[in-house]
């Protein structure tokens, strides 16, 4: 809508409607700029995929744009099964499964806790709940590095440091502000009569939650799911600190493959590994489409 002057006849021109040419200077500028930016965004994806399908001699020939002469998936197989991450050479597959083992429980636990929090905050207010919530939201802006070392000590005391449980706990903790906000706002938008009627009928805290609120909150669950799956899958810092060498998630292993490789770097394997690591969040992104945007927008509107 915004700023398309020729549409209305409010100006002095009285020549009436005339066929609008497609190539107005304005349009050319708009589309050229958009195409230019699109190339910037698409270029790395192209390079990533093309490089991963080449052989090393082809890469050494030194044309990063060139399409592979005979595309082959050797590098992908190497990246998945035998690339070296530091000392062991089992490829990315252990990292992939670690990421799965981290992402699934973290996502479920964090979303469940946040849903309950949001529900309690809206329907069962108690003294101080708003203050805790405000601190929670404010706290989400504190750099993780500030809380990192004490959390290492806490997880050590709990005897879970260096295990998957530790990473799951940390993701739950740091997912809490944004997810709680999401659920709180969603529950606030539901009609209060529902809640009141259920209370009059004698339903208690958990019954109302499980039988009335949860079934109604599918849309917000989808948003939270997307936010958490992509966020946790893409995490690097918590994985590297809390997971322990055996449980490094895919991002950490990927970085080890590329940045600590001994001998001559195999760029095709590196790029195949990079594509593989990006595949899960990209799949989520392309499947969820509008929901992803909604999640991003919801995640952004803090406070």
């Amino acid at each position, binding site marked *: 809508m*915004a700023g398309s002057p020729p549409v209305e006849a409010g100006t002095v021109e009285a020549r009436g409607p005339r066929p609008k040419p497609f190539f107005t200077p304005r349009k050319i500028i708009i*589309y050229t700029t958009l195409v230019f930016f699109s190339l910037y965004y698409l270029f790395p994806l192209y390079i990533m995929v093309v490089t991963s399908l080449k052989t090393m001699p082809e890469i050494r020939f030194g044309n990063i744009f060139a399409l592979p002469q005979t595309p082959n998936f050797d590098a992908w197989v190497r990246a998945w099964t035998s690339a070296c991450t530091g000392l062991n050479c089992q490829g990315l597959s252990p990292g992939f499964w670690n990421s799965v083992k981290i992402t699934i429980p973290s996502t479920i636990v964090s979303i469940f806790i946040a849903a309950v929090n949001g529900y309690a905050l809206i329907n069962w207010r108690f003294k101080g709940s708003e203050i805790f919530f405000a601190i929670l939201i404010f*706290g989400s802006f504190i*750099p993780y*590095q500030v809380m990192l070392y004490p959390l290492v000590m806490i997880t050590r005391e709990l005897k879970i440091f260096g295990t998957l449980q530790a990473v799951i706990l940390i993701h739950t903790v740091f997912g809490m502000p944004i997810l709680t906000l999401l659920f709180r706002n969603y529950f606030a938008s539901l009609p209060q009569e529902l809640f009141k009627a259920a209370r009059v009928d004698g339903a208690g*805290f958990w019954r109302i939650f499980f039988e009335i609120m949860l079934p109604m909150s599918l849309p917000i669950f989808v948003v939270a799911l997307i936010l958490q799956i992509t966020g946790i899958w893409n995490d690097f810092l918590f994985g590297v600190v809390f997971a322990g060498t055996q449980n490094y998630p895919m991002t950490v292993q990927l970085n080890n493959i590329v940045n600590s490789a001994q001998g001559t770097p195999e760029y095709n394997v590196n790029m195949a590994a990079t594509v593989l690591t990006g595949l899960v969040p990209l799949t989520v992104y392309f499947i969820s489409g509008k929901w992803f945007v909604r999640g991003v927008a919801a995640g*952004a509107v803090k406070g």
Partner: protein
Amino acid sequence: MADIAVQAGEGAGSVGRPSALRKLFFHNLSAKVAALPMIATVLVVFIGCTIWTIYYSFTNSKLLPTGKFVGFDQYERLFATSRWNVSVWNLVAYGAMSLIFTLVIGFILAVLIDQKIRFESALRTIMLYPFALSFIVTGLVWQWIMNPTLGLQGTLRNLGWTGFSFDWIANPRMVLFALLIAGLWHGTGFCMVLMLAGLRSVDDEVWKAARVDGIPTWRTYISIVLPMMRGVLVTAVVIIGSGIVRLYDLVVALTNGGPGISSEVPAKYVFNYMFSGGNIGQGLAAATMMLLTVLIIMIPWAYLEFGGKGKRT
């Protein structure tokens, strides 16, 4: 919506008169139990851990956080360390450029997308997909593209443009721009989405009025629409800003702080001193400085947003 629970509580309060203390504990008990994870997180992690970090940043903790109190020694050392000063300067320079370019590019793209163009959803998809990828992936791809021998520079030289130079990740004076290219690639789409939402929330009447008054489109954008999007802009600045302070993964993947120390950032300094340098006190002091930076960004914002009493909800 702020009063339903209050009503629920008052009904019980009129029967007898439970002491205030009892009420504090047992009123909506299940809600308190349910909110326990949140309360614990706030008290233990956000408040407890932060205070712990600040306290121990004043000790001479080395391998274990049990040093004796040394006042501001760690901070004096911090600011006498060139690596820290380089880190801070890098963050300021990168942060300023990143913030400005992200906002400007995000706004321009949003305005262009908002022009009733064709392929709108395809273009939006293209702009936002990098945001779905991790910083590690982002850093590694751009590291490959900017590889001085086999990347863009090598390719264009082989194609005959022998003078072409794009060795930014290997050049201490340009490495921040390399970081910027990768960072903008990752984040501008997100900013565009925010801005687009802001633009679409501006009432059409505003546009009609501006057109009737004969104000040119670009001026309407700058002097009418932009100020109306203040809320979105503030949100964007706060989110981008707090992201910049945390900048870590991207640097690790793209340059690992190099060449030399020319692309070090504070978050990396903290990490290295805490986990590999065996100098916890120093790491904690650096972390406290990061906290201070965020507070300097956040407090004016919080004051503006929530300072006026009763402005919220």
